[in-house]
């Protein structure tokens, strides 16, 4: 009896779930379990083979999750929340280690305990705010505690919305579950893998926990996980092969392709949420879906009901109803309209709030505000129409007419939302306006094609609606309850499994195409944006709003930005210089500048006798992003040259490189600083995508309003008609035709200043580790270098057969790592040695 009481206290029977305690080992249940088990194992294999959300680490915890699912399925219901909680704690400790895991679990439990302290609600709230302030300090890195800071985004992701909901329910005494269920609510284990997580309501969490037979919930979970995988694969097809860059938008057709495909990328979020909710269903959480065919929204309120439903439910519960009740008592007219507008300002704020906790900084972007304002206005109008319609009887409409009207509305909404989405993703209003202006370019054939596509879409939708209005096989399949779809999901998963097995050795074009989808990477556009974002950040701060970049930024360690400490911003063409004698520690490297502000060791102002001194001009590669001073390839090459007995003189290579410096900065350096140290040669390091980088540098200088100083640059600015207020895309488009002229001028300026100072000019070509090699550009720039009188050192094949993935710092930072620098250093040593006699001869 006493044992029973202790057991009941420790493992309380779950309220309102007692009637679901069916036999755990009935043959029917065992068969269903076996089917689900096979489906889950195959799906996890597919996820692993296709690298689906690889960075989330979900594949790494597959086996523990399968074990947890098995255990959870065969313990009595009252023990299952404990299995759920232990699984979460295991994953937390596995992912973050002992110290961070303890911090995560401890903080979470303290926060939950605070909600239930036997003190007035205001005191509990105050305590929670104090703890939240501590977490905030860690999130802002104001206090150095790396192991705690590591888990702060994950704690934030679990608590930033759920704690608000939970407190709301505690305040109104709405919590009815067992204490262990409240803990599980904050320990939803997929959250450890996925920071972007549906805002699950606490009451929904309790209500849906084993709300029906678990065999049914399992099959729903498998179906949703499969749907999630398919959404993510479709997203990859679009992202890698369909989406075009804003700069590729040239006319109305390409504009439509750009906006529609960009909007379709919501598929990834939808896929992710389906996957997360599907996984939770395997543990008995029969949660509602997060996305409901949002591309088929026929008006704004319909869209609001279909897209990210969990967000909507959160906003309705915590803000909409309270604001509406508050206003109802005070304002007689237009209460609904005013409430909706307030709600959308709150929505905008909470998106920024979410962004802050996950990324670590707050962005109150005017584009975000405009986006939410327009959506808010649309929903207000839509709601007003709906409110008025509610007062009058509906007019009878013929069914076929209603179908056509609905399809017209869907088409309109789809186009409108696609354009809105492109606005949201644009770097600025000017960029978006420039993009939209391209839509004014079209031919008669373009219009006919667009009309044809729209009519086909409407007719297709019309016939599907007719089909669904009658009882037929198609309708019956679509409306099948999820637990009766094992016969459909199993072959689908089997087919995906077969494909993923074949991908181990892909033969033939179709398989190679599918294999391309199994890689997680940035598409060409985002790769370019990321590179630019990195350099742009060095110039004017990080502002990446691109489609796939959020995940790259999430994975990027915070110390990536610590370089800001060593720069002094300037208002000239250089845009910045290094602080002299500065030393900082990054993650795994030290960065040190000498007394003249170079990232290098000390050199005497007066060149020593029998010394050949070189000045190296370069950007972040040459500066040595992410490696220590003695690991930079310039330093390695210098050491090897000095150790070589066949070279009779001493060699000094002064590193003038700085992250974000390109040709225009190098010209400026040659005219202002480099020759103060009397170099015998200037080594200019050219890279892949020379044109793009030069174009971006020049555009950024124009946007910042920097004085271009040199007559040729000023003249080009005048001829191309660019100005500071234009969008970056437009500036780049206008300058593009002149870019070879700019490169050629820069080369000639470097050579000219070298000649003036009795030095040689060396052009070294060093391919980057990540950009595609462009033979045409390489040949053209090399020809320009030869024509201008550079001595050529070609390191085109410097990486040889080495796997470039092993030579980079990380997936989010493709600069060379120490191994990469060693290879380049040796290559540069060989290259400079080969031209040494030519250089020393010229010196004489």
């Amino acid at each position: 009896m006493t044992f029973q009481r202790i057991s009941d206290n420790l493992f309380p029977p779950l309220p309102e779930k007692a009637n679901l305690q069916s036999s755990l080992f009935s043959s029917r249940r065992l068969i269903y379990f076996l089917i689900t088990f096979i489906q889950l194992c195959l799906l996890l294999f597919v996820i692993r083979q296709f690298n689906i959300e690889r960075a989330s680490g979900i594949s790494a915890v597959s086996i523990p999750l399968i074990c947890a699912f098995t255990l959870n399925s065969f313990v009595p219901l009252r023990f299952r929340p404990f299995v759920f909680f232990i699984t979460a704690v295991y994953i937390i400790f596995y992912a973050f280690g002992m110290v961070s895991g303890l911090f995560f679990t401890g903080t979470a439990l303290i926060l939950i305990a605070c909600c239930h302290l036997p003190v007035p609600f205001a005191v509990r709230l105050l305590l929670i705010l104090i703890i939240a302030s501590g977490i905030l300090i860690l999130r802002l890195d104001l206090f150095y505690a790396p192991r705690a800071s590591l888990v702060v985004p994950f704690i934030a992701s679990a608590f930033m919305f759920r704690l608000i909901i939970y407190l709301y329910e505690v305040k109104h005494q709405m919590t009815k579950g067992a204490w262990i269920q409240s803990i599980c609510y904050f320990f939803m284990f997929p959250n450890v893998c996925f920071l972007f997580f549906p805002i699950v309501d606490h009451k929904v969490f309790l209500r849906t926990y084993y709300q029906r037979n678990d065999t049914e919930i399992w099959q729903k979970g498998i179906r949703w996980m499969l749907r999630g995988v398919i959404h993510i694969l479709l997203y990859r097809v679009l992202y890698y092969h369909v989406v075009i860059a804003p700069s590729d938008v040239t006319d109305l057709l390409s504009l439509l392709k750009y906006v529609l495909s960009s909007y379709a990328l919501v598929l990834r979020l939808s896929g992710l949420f389906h996957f997360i909710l599907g996984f939770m269903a395997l543990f008995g959480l029969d949660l509602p879906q997060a996305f409901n065919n949002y591309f088929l929204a026929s008006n704004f309120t319909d869209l609001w009901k279909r897209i990210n439903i969990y967000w909507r439910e959160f906003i309705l519960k915590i803000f909409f109803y309270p604001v509406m009740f508050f206003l109802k008592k005070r304002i007689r007219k237009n209460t609904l309209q005013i409430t909706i507008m307030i709600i959308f300002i709150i929505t905008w704020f909470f998106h920024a709030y979410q962004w802050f906790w996950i990324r670590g900084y707050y962005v109150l972007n005017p584009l975000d505000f405009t986006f939410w304002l327009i959506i808010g206005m649309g929903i207000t109008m839509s709601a007003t129409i709906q409110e008025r319609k509610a007062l009058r009887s509906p007019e009878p409409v013929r069914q076929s007419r209603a179908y056509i009207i609905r399809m017209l509305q869907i088409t309109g909404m789809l186009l409108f939302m696609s354009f809105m989405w492109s606005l949201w993703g644009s770097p600025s209003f000017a960029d978006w306006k420039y993009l939209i202006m391209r839509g004014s370019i079209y031919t008669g054939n373009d219009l006919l094609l667009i009309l044809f596509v729209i009519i086909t879409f409407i007719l297709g939708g019309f016939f599907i609606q007719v089909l669904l209005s009658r009882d037929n096989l198609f309708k019956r399949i679509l409306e099948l309850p999820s637990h009766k779809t094992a016969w459909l999901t199993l072959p689908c998963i089997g087919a995906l499994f077969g494909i993923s097995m074949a991908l181990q050795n892909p033969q033939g074009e179709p398989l190679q195409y599918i294999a391309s989808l199994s890689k997680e990477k940035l598409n060409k556009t985002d790769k370019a944006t990321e590179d630019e974002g990195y350099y742009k950040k060095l110039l004017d701060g990080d502002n990446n709003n691109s489609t796939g970049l959020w995940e790259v930024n999430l994975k990027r360690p915070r110390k990536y930005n610590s370089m800001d400490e060593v720069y002094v911003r300037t208002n000239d063409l250089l845009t910045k210089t290094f602080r002299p004698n500065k030393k900082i520690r990054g993650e795994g490297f030290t960065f040190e500048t000498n007394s003249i502000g170079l990232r290098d060791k000390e050199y005497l102002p007066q060149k020593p006798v029998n010394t050949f001194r070189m000045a190296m001009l370069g950007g972040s590669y040459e500066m040595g992003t992410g490696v220590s001073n003695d690991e930079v390839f310039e330093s390695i090459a210098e050491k090897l040259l000095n150790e070589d007995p066949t070279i009779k003189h001493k060699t000094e290579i002064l590193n003038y490189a700085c992250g974000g410096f390109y040709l225009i900065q190098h010209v400026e350096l040659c005219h202002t600083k480099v020759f103060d140290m009397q170099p015998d040669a200037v080594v200019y390091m050219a890279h892949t995508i020379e044109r793009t980088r030069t174009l971006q540098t020049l555009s950024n200088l124009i946007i910042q309003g920097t004085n271009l100083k040199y007559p040729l640059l000023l003249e080009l600015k005048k001829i191309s008609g660019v100005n500071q207020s234009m969008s970056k895309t437009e500036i780049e488009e206008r300058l593009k035709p002149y870019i070879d002229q700019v490169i050629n001028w820069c080369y000639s300026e470097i050579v000219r200043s070298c000649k003036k100072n009795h030095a040689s000019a060396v052009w070294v070509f060093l391919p980057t580790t990540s950009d595609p090699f462009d033979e045409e550009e390489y040949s053209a720039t090399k020809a320009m270098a030869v024509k201008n009188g550079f001595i050529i050192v070609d390191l085109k094949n410097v990486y040889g057969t080495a796997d470039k993935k092993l030579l980079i710092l990380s997936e989010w930072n493709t600069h060379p790592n120490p191994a990469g620098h060693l290879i380049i250093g040796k290559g540069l040593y060989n290259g400079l040695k080969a031209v040494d006699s030519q250089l020393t001869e010229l010196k004489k």
Partner: protein
Amino acid sequence: LLYTPLTMQQDLQNIKIKVGSYIQERVLKGASKKEITDNTALISGGVMDSISTMQLVSFLEKEFGFEFQAHEVDRDNLDTIELISNFVLSKLRG
């Protein structure tokens, strides 16, 4: 008022009739082919959205003379005619 079990039952029935006809007339407007029963899911079944829920709240407040609190606008209280009627009755009983 003191409610006896019999009058409670009658009240509940009256409330159900009033709420049912409101939903038929104002929410469905007689357009739905589906049969609405006392246990048809109105919010979770997508019959009512946030706007029609607020309209129902206004109707209930006016018709039965009590005030809703914001946190009471909830699926637990308003998802079916049965739940609505029980909630209204509990409010009337104080």
